[in-house]
């Protein structure tokens, strides 16, 4: 999406005919609905993510026991880093699984 926007931007400035329709076609093809994701910890103002707090950590553990990636959960970079540490600590303490099958 972002690259096409950039292409159509200068196109409009110069000839207008070539860049404009090309950008529109690409836009139609790749259009999809994206839900707005918000970092849970920013919203709830949780700054310290406790490794003992299994309930909140479990929301970021899918079935397989992996850590939910940022692009899916929407967690911000700062909180994802802290969440990652908390989950890893919880795994050592056998509060969360390393892997489940």
């Amino acid at each position, binding site marked *: 999406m972002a690259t096409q926007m950039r292409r159509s931007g200068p196109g409009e400035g110069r000839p207008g005919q070539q860049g404009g329709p090309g950008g529109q076609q690409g836009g139609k093809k790749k259009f999809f609905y994206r839900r707005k994701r918000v970092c849970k910890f920013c919203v709830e*103002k949780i*700054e*310290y993510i*406790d*490794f*003992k*707090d*299994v*309930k909140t950590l479990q929301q970021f553990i899918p079935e397989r026991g992996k850590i939910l990636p940022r692009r899916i959960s929407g967690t911000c970079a700062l909180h994802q880093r*802290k969440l990652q540490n908390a989950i890893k*600590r919880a*795994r*050592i*303490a*056998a*509060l*969360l*699984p*390393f892997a489940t099958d």
Partner: protein
Amino acid sequence: MRTYEVLFILSPQVPEEETASLITDFKRVAESTGAKLTNEEAWGRRRLAYPIQKFTEGNYHLFVFDSDGSLSELDRRMRNSDRILRHMIVRTDLDHKRAEKLVKRNPKKERARPAPAFPATPEQKVPEAEPAAVEGE
């Protein structure tokens, strides 16, 4: 002054009287090195997320210490004890400090929105010290 959280899992085979004496023993070891116990939680028996030494259950216990030095002696004792399936000592004061700073900084950014930021800031320390919700599980 540093804050340490010591979480350890006692083997489920240990009888209750021995658990109590072990716990007081460990407390004494830490206190003899200058640590001060500020919080203690007995989570009781919990299912382990994965088997450790072929046990599927464990007796969880948590200490929170304030100390100037390290808890290396306690760490050594816990490692050598065969009654302990697993233990973990985590230093938390730095993370808490950073978290407090962030809490203070955020309300400035979000002042446009109606947010009761100030009463919330001092209270945020408390819930981490006593995750009572975990205890019931």
